[in-house]
């Protein structure tokens, strides 16, 4: 057990308060007497269920696409690598609504790609698929960046040892590289799941908002804010509880 300098406690406490106080204020606003009723309304449950399904799928997609991207960024050298790394970060800076517009122009009926999909009879916009795409788009950088950092920190010493024992690249990847960065992979997955769960702007712009199909929990919260702000606060609280539960669960089941 390493000892930390005492003084780190002060800023850590301040940072903790910056997160905790607003949550406490939010909790104070929750209309606890109506809480159960508000969060179990048909529309709330539909939104919650949709959110859980789409966010899980999005997190899965982030792992499938993001792990190879992180590997490429961390372990290979080619011209334009630095630019590529910056580009991967862009969904992070882009205001989500703008991201949604960009997705619309890509996968929409008139879009770069959507045009051709339309011919094949595939329509993405206004479908649950669109929600998952929007969430994956905004959540992908989280997984890529946190994993790339860990891959660099972990170094290539064990990978070299594995190759020298005759392990081909796939084996090295699955049995050495990934297990070694498992903690980072898990926290990256949790980050992208959380980001997908909270996604609003890109979803509303690209996928629209229809109960049960595209109206996720954050969209439901926005809508409720217009008519019943109390309900919005209650739902926000539900979102927080779900997120914390999923994150805590993921950590529990991780070996690290």
């Amino acid at each position, binding site marked *: 057990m390493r000892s930390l300098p005492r003084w780190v406690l002060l800023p850590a406490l301040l940072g903790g308060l910056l997160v905790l106080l607003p949550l406490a204020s939010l909790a104070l606003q929750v209309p606890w007497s109506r809480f159960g009723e508000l969060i179990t309304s048909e529309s709330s449950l539909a939104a919650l269920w949709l959110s859980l399904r789409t966010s899980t799928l999005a997190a899965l997609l982030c792992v499938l696409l993001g792990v190879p991207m992180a590997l490429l960024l961390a372990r290979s050298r080619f011209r334009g690598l630095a630019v590529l790394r910056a580009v991967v970060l862009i969904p992070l800076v882009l205001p989500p609504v703008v991201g949604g*517009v960009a997705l*619309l*122009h890509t996968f*929409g*009926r*008139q879009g770069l790609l959507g045009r051709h999909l339309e011919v094949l009879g595939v329509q993405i*916009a*206004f479908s649950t698929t669109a929600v998952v795409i929007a969430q994956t788009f905004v959540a992908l950088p989280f997984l890529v960046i946190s994993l790339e950092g860990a891959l660099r920190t972990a170094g290539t010493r064990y990978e070299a040892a594995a190759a020298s024992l005759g392990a081909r690249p796939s084996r090295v990847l699955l049995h050495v590289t990934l297990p070694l960065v498992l903690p980072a992979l898990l926290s990256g997955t949790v980050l992208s799941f959380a980001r997908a769960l909270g996604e609003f702007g890109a979803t*509303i*712009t690209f*996928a*629209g*908002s*229809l*109960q049960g199909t*595209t*109206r996720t929990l954050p*969209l439901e919260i*926005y*809508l*409720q*804010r*217009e*008519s019943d*702000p109390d309900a919005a606060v209650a739902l926000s609280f539900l979102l927080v509880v779900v997120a914390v539960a999923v994150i805590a669960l993921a950590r529990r089941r991780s070996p690290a």
Partner: protein
Amino acid sequence: PTSEDTTVTVFAAASLQEPFDEIGDRFETEHPGTRVEISYAGSSTLAEQIRQGAPADVLATADEATMATVVEAGLADADPVPFATNTLMIAVPAGNPAGVTDLASLTEDGLNLVLCAPAVPCGAAAAAVESAAGLTFAPVSEEQSVTDVLTKVSSGEADAGLVYATDIRRAGGAVDGIGFPEAEKAVNTYPLTTVKGSQHAELGQDFVDLVLSEAGQSVLADHGFAGT
């Protein structure tokens, strides 16, 4: 502007941006040494901010229901005054590829119709015309704001949507508007008021007066708003 400038702070619905910027400029010319700062956001956000003690002198919302929440909280300094109205139109992508003609044609199978959700003002208005016309819409999406509807239509994603006349106008050539008679059943009214606790109550009232004046009204009309 120097530090001695007095500043009037106006909270206005985002859809009012263009006319209010013009009116603000005019106000500054008429009141030398005074600056007008206008914070634009969704009406419900503005109302929430006022309830949390935001330092606004004037509030203009895009519907009366939202304004009512501020009045209920006792934060309106005077009774809100209606200053503009807006009516619904059918928005279709430029060239009207789906061949929409009137409200009834919005119920056709395979037509991608987007509306505002009933919880937001433009959605409530859409519901009103729907029942007035005795139709049943099956939208592919119930959007959170007019802007979202407009984005879907202008990008060609949706074949048609219901938006305000002013929205058709500011979309430039990207969408075409089609009027319909039932729109009369759902006129949306924009109210404004001075805010309680304002540091510049008098100037705030001057701003309200300017909006209501002939000059103010003509600016609004230039941007597609109808009078009250």
